[in-house]
């Protein structure tokens, strides 16, 4: 039988199942259950749970553990992720794979503690200073909170880039039935680059992001961007729902995709042909799915729990050939299916 689990617990459980044995955290709502689960579980499986003195320290502990070659992670919520920005930039600049979880809440500033998607820009455009990207995954169910973890670790290690799971307070707090993942016992991939002691058998490894010679730094960034290119070509993830005959496309991810799905069911009952493209990877943005579907429809509606941070990415994907509309709530408010339905009806009546 499936088991009922909170999104946060499911995520933490999956991390342990994926072979992660090093968790460094700092308390913040609404990611609390991840830390609590790790504090309870890590000692039992011979792992490390360490509550750091700050978000900054926590991400740097992750940096150290990742540099030493193990699967390491931290979790936080919006204001805490801002504090981690420095460390994430250093990890990106040092080509270190690790997992950062953001269970988003409303902002800016201390903001609120209710669910939000207001860190889309931060996650996909500028998680810190410098020319870099990180992998960003947006689960939409508790099962996906679980399934994304192993995938995020694997992909991060494959390309040597940090990965983020961008969840929100709703997904973190809610319970749904899940199927537990398989245990991964051994440390994932071999990491010949790790700084864990050369044992007098090789040259010393240096994990570093400082390059004072500009052309050398440029070369390194270019090499990294070649990897990003490959990621964009091969790692896009999106789910399509009722798009076969759709005349209108909703683009929504995470919690707001669930709301959109509810609205789509109701709109279909009223005869409006609307479907959903749900980005699962936010970076790389699923340009292919959005473009191919977006060019077939008359209207595109982006639904988010922010002020429209994904809208530009959708416009760029369809090269502005299809009008892109927006419906969002912010500050911790969740749009209701009724609100979305009304917007769908409004757009449908206009395009007739």
């Amino acid at each position, binding site marked *: 039988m499936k088991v009922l689990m909170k999104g946060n617990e499911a995520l933490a459980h999956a991390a342990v199942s994926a072979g992660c044995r090093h968790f460094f955290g700092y308390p913040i709502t609404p990611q609390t259950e991840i830390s609590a689960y790790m504090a309870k579980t890590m000692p039992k499986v011979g792992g490390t749970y360490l509550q750091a003195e700050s978000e900054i320290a926590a991400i740097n502990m992750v940096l150290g553990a990742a540099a030493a070659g193990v699967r390491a992670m931290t979790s936080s919520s919006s204001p805490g992720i801002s504090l981690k920005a420095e460390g994430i930039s250093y990890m990106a600049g040092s080509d270190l794979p690790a997992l950062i979880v953001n269970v988003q809440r409303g902002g800016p500033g201390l903001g609120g503690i209710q669910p939000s998607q207001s860190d889309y820009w931060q996650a996909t455009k500028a998680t810190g200073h410098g020319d870099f990207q990180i992998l960003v995954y947006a689960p939409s169910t508790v099962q996906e909170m679980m399934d994304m973890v192993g995938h995020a670790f694997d992909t991060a290690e494959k390309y040597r880039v940090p990965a983020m799971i961008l969840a929100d307070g709703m997904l973190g707090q809610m*319970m749904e039935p899940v199927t537990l993942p398989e245990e991964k016992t051994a440390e994932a991939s071999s990491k010949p680059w790790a700084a864990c002691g050369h044992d007098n058998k090789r040259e010393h490894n240096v994990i570093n992001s400082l390059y004072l010679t500009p052309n050398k730094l440029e070369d390194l960034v270019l090499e990294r961007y070649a990897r990003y290119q490959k990621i964009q070509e091969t790692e896009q993830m999106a789910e399509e729902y009722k798009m076969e005959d759709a005349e209108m496309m909703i683009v929504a991810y995470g919690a707001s995709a669930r709301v959109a799905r509810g609205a789509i*069911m109701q709109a279909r009952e009223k005869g409006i042909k609307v479907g959903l493209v749900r980005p699962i990877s936010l970076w790389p943005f699923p340009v292919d799915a959005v473009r191919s579907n977006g060019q077939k429809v008359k209207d595109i509606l982006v639904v988010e729990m922010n002020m429209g941070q994904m809208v530009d990415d959708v416009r760029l994907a369809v090269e502005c050939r299809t009008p892109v509309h927006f419906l969002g709530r912010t500050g911790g408010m969740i749009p209701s299916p009724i609100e979305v339905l009304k917007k769908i009806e409004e757009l449908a009546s206009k395009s007739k």
Partner: protein
Amino acid sequence: MKDLNVLFAGFGGQGILFAGKVAAYVGLLMNKEISWLPSYGPEMRGGTANCTVCISDEEIGAPNVPNPNVFVVMNLPSFDKFIADVESGGTVVIDSSLIDKKVERDDLNVFYVPASEIAEKNNISGLANIVLVGKLFHEMKFASMEMLDKAIEYCVPKSKEKMLDMNKQAARLGACFA
């Protein structure tokens, strides 16, 4: 089956989230799609608490339901806050030992259950939440008592095993209350 969107609401410490979890497990045992969404934050620490449980044959979209069709309520502030939101034709189960107000709407099926009093009399005070759950499932004719027992078994942690029979008794007391 018609979707059940149940809102449980009351004070922190009354077992609101637990009652929701029992209801969710009933759905799970019946192979339904389910979701359970709690309120969280400062209100968990002594203020009002609530959670929404959706039970459906279809995949569940938004787990936050602005208009629940079932409302189980254990304090006055929550009663005042949510009673207007309940879908027309919906069911309301009220702990009438804690809330002395009557529902003024005439489009709802309302059950007044002095759950706290019943629990106290039977030496299971603190389990008014499950008394209400027992009443709810009995009235909704949604699940058998055996199913409810099984859900309770899933939800009561091993460390509190002695609570198991008390919870089952509470559910029965609720179901039998006329």
